[in-house]
């Protein structure tokens, strides 16, 4: 069985509404994939961080720019794709090394990497595509 999530919205650094929409749709997908609440919340946190990065870095805080999120789960994995038309992501991708505990930034990629064991990025036709994949066998046993 394959479940599908699709959310399209526009960037706005001061908008709170997309969080609620993403929470509703993504938590439903994650639970359908068999994730327990803590693991589903870890997935939600990671996708929120990825969207934050698009708004803050790819679009540099500019409003009204397109963000597309697509999610699927199959037997073996949960996959989330995030697309935007902002600045290309610098490579290599951050490793998610833990930030200093007293730092006031630098935790986003740690949260992303903790929830998704496979992360890939490509730039296709002036579009950024970040793909986050979580094997479901692992997902069922940890948060």
């Amino acid at each position, binding site marked *: 069985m394959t479940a599908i999530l699709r959310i399209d919205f526009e960037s706005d650094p001061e908008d*709170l509404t997309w969080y609620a929409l993403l929470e509703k749709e993504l938590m439903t997908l994650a639970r359908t994939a068999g994730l327990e609440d*803590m693991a589903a919340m870890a997935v939600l946190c990671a996708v929120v961080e990825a969207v934050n990065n698009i708004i803050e870095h790819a679009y540099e805080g500019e409003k009204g720019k397109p963000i597309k999120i697509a999610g699927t789960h199959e037997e073996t994995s949960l996959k989330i794709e995030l697309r935007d038309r902002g600045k290309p992501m610098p490579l290599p991708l951050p490793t998610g090394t833990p930030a200093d505990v007293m*730092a006031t930034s630098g*935790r986003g990629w740690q949260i992303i990497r903790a929830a998704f064991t496979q992360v890939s990025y490509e730039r296709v036709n002036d579009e950024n595509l970040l793909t986050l994949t979580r094997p479901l066998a692992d997902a069922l046993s940890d*948060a």
Partner: protein
Amino acid sequence: MKLEHRTENNVDIVALPNRLVMANAAEARSDLKQVIQQGSGRVVINLSQTEFMDSSGLAVVVAGLQAARKMNGDVHLAHMSDTIRALFELTRLHTVFQIFDDEADAVAAFA
């Protein structure tokens, strides 16, 4: 946004919102900093209403701790949900905050 704030036994008690995320973090950070700088530096952050926090929200709490410590104070956290506790443990922030189940205990720990 104005954070809910009251004072009890010379301890500032601040409640964070339902969602503390990039969209409202800057305002929350400014409000919290103002409360701390105008108070004793002894702060309890009540998380009973807070269901979701991202890394921007974590930064608000860390900035509060920095401000409190500049005043030789501290920040105690109370009523943290399991999911936010997991986020604190992932980012090791549980090692720099005293975390209490109950707000009254968090206030009393300053005595």
